[in-house]
């Protein structure tokens, strides 16, 4: 039986670790590679490096940083931000990333997901979705809309429909980022997470809103997520990976405890 995963996201701007609140007000909070190594040693199951400005500024992701990370951490990690082609994806994979996340570029050209899945395997093609709550309409019946360009541009696309389409196109995993919950520390968007997790047959990572260990528990049970992604609560030292995992383990969730 697979364990539930604790995933830590490092939002990187330039070569600095950044953290945003509701995708705005970013500030630098340290050296991402050093942080990655620290989390690796403390038992995180997977890391995500997200270049939060790559998409907006149409900039190539920093291959060098991926290589550095790959020589420091010996668990799977994924990279996202500004990936527009199979060439980008392959370059990152060869630099040491286990998986690549696509987001904006996949919305603009859905076939990108299929191309990446065919080139480096479905298990390495991750579809990351930034989602905002809206009033349900005929176009957006689920009441959740896909937003691109780092949370700036609404698309009119229904999040549930896009999640299912992403799976059909070959995505091996989905990251559900709730813009409403991001940085609030009030808990994950459980309704959204569960709605998508119930509708697809691929693993789902809940993202945005973790403030307490209970929130992770909720995402992995009520939210039916396979993994819970955290950022602020570990970056600012409120909780360590070990504390989060011990909490989940204590409440009967199967998580990796020997590391």
């Amino acid at each position, binding site marked *: *039986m697979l*364990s539930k995963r604790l995933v830590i996201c490092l939002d990187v701007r330039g070569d600095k670790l950044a953290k945003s609140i509701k995708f705005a007000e970013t500030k630098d909070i340290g050296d991402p590679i050093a942080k990655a190594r620290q989390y690796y040693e403390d038992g995180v199951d997977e890391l995500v490096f997200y270049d939060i400005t790559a998409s907006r500024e149409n900039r190539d992701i920093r291959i060098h940083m991926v290589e550095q990370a790959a020589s420091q951490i010996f668990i799977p990690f994924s990279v996202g931000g500004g990936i527009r082609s199979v060439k980008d994806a392959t370059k990152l*994979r060869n630099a*040491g990333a286990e998986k690549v996340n696509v987001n904006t570029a996949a919305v603009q050209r859905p076939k990108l997901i299929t191309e990446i899945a065919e080139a480096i*395997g479905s298990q390495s093609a991750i579809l990351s979705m930034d989602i905002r709550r809206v009033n349900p309409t005929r176009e957006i019946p689920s009441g959740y809309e896909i937003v691109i360009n780092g949370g700036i541009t609404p698309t009119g696309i229904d999040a549930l429909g896009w999640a299912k389409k992403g799976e059909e196109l070959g995505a091996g995993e989905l990251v559900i980022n709730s813009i409403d919950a991001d940085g609030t520390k009030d808990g994950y968007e459980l309704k959204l997470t569960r709605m998508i997790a119930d509708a697809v047959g691929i*693993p789902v990572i809940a993202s945005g809103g973790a403030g307490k260990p209970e929130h992770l528990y909720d995402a992995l049970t009520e939210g039916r997520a396979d993994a819970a992604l955290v950022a602020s609560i570990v970056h600012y030292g409120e909780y360590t990976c070990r504390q989060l995992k011990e909490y989940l383990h204590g409440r009967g969730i199967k998580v990796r405890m*020997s*590391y």
Partner: protein
Amino acid sequence: MITIVDYNAGNIRSVLRACGEVGAKAAITGDPEAVAKAEKIIFPGVGAAPSAMAYLTKTGLDTALTEAFRVGIPILGICMGTQIVLESSEEGDQKCLGLIPGRTVRFRLKDKRLKIPHMGWNEVKVVKPHPLLEGIKGGDEFYFVHSYYPQPADENNIYAVADYGGDFCCALGYKNLFAVQFHPEKSGRLGLELLERFTKWEGEEV
């Protein structure tokens, strides 16, 4: 010196980096002569069995690996490298290296909630002691990404299993060959420790 076999099967630099992390000298090569004369071999890889075998055959690495095995060079197979040391693979109904009797089969899962590929951290249960598995205890998890798994003909060659809709073989051993379905290079400290034990293993049969 560990020779890591390069046969165009995915990113194998992570294996090189992991060897570096445990202080082992290692180098990547696709040269059959270098493989046949290696001190120790890691045979990694991800991908599909038919294309992997086609590449090995075309380059003569198939013969080199078979020869290396025959003369007793310690070999560690990882993932695809593990699947193709058996006689055949269900993937594309492919004839493989045949260093050990048995075949590679696809997951047939009754529980439809279980997904293929089997991807993530899964407990590895040691069923028979082996120097490379020393110290692994109940609850220890390793990182997997695969849709097929090795099924040795002789159960005595099975050293560890993992449970995914039922137990499947995830570590097999035969003479100077040891092979794992999981990725020690991506399995944190426990995976690195396995690689470290491989640097000390002289290929003695257990």
